[in-house]
């Protein structure tokens, strides 16, 4: 079965640029990255159904632009970039649809969390998600990528187009704000 095959990124990238093998190769890309991209998207949009839609859009966008991917950057970096852009666009669109201010992330994301049937966290987890939702968009992204995905700063820097120093400072501020938020909540 395909799922038991070893994932060789260099070989996959080569196959992606061959008309005969590109579709099968992209199938392997989906298989390899769907889970990690899903969780990143889910932490941004909170709701499972929304995360499913955004993940689908991410892969569709990557596939329709696959000819532009020349392997200059890592495939994972490219996919994360698309996923993050799609997530931000989706959240902003949904906020506009719900007639909320684009800055009003906290109440929007908390509402999403409370109405999501695919969330079974306890009160502590709800509080942590509320604290993360209270962060500005960029800090929230940095915190999620670092805290949950343990992504290295150099890869994060490529994805977000920000210097490593700025990302470290951003993470530091995010941690402090979350600790303060949680301290006030408890």
């Amino acid at each position, binding site marked *: 079965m395909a799922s038991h095959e070893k994932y060789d990124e260099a070989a996959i990238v080569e196959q*992606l*640029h*061959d*008309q005969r093998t*590109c*579709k099968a190769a*992209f*199938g392997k890309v*989906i*298989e390899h990255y*769907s*889970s990690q991209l*899903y*969780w990143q998207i*889910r*932490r941004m949009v909170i709701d*499972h159904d929304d995360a*499913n839609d955004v*993940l*689908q859009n991410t*892969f*569709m966008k990557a*596939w*329709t632009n*696959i*000819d532009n991917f*020349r392997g200059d950057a890592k495939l994972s970096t490219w996919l994360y970039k698309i996923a993050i852009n799609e997530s931000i666009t989706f959240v902003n669109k949904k906020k506009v649809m719900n007639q909320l201010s684009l800055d009003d992330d906290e109440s929007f994301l908390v509402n999403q969390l409370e109405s999501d049937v*695919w*969330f*079974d*966290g*306890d009160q*502590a*987890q*709800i509080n*942590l*998600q509320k604290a993360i939702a209270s962060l500005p968009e960029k800090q929230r992204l940095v915190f999620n990528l*670092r*805290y*949950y995905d343990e992504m290295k700063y150099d890869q994060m820097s490529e994805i977000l187009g920000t210097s490593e120093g700025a990302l*470290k400072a951003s*993470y*530091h501020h995010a*941690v402090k704000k*979350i*600790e303060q938020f*949680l301290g006030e909540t408890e």
Partner: protein
Amino acid sequence: MTFTSQIGVMKHEDSTILNKYGKNPGFKVPENYFADFNQRMTEMLPDVEITPVDAKPTMWQRLKPLVYMAAMFAGVWCMMSVFSHFSTSSNLQSVRAVAEQLHDDNNLDELIMSGMVSDYDILSYEDSVMMSNEENISDEIEK
């Protein structure tokens, strides 16, 4: 604080959150979600046109930048030579025309009144006449 201890602080700055809340955000997904998603996603991929990376460029594709550059230089050269030709000939023509007009005293007053000839033109003309006269005198003395 030493450099090593600073790194230690950076590494463990989230340890309070980590110890208390862990890394499980409390999200879950339907059973077999990822397997189903992978299959569904792969099936819905439309056909796309892929340009082979190692496709050898044709002779024209390789020569195109050189041809464009040569054409650009030729164009610039043509423009400069045309510009230089017209500017030289128009200067000569205008000097000759002014000289002819100034030579005729009947025309001179009319031209001054109508503003077609300025004081500067007359002075320039007189200077050039004086200089050419002086040159003629010195040539005759030498002879």
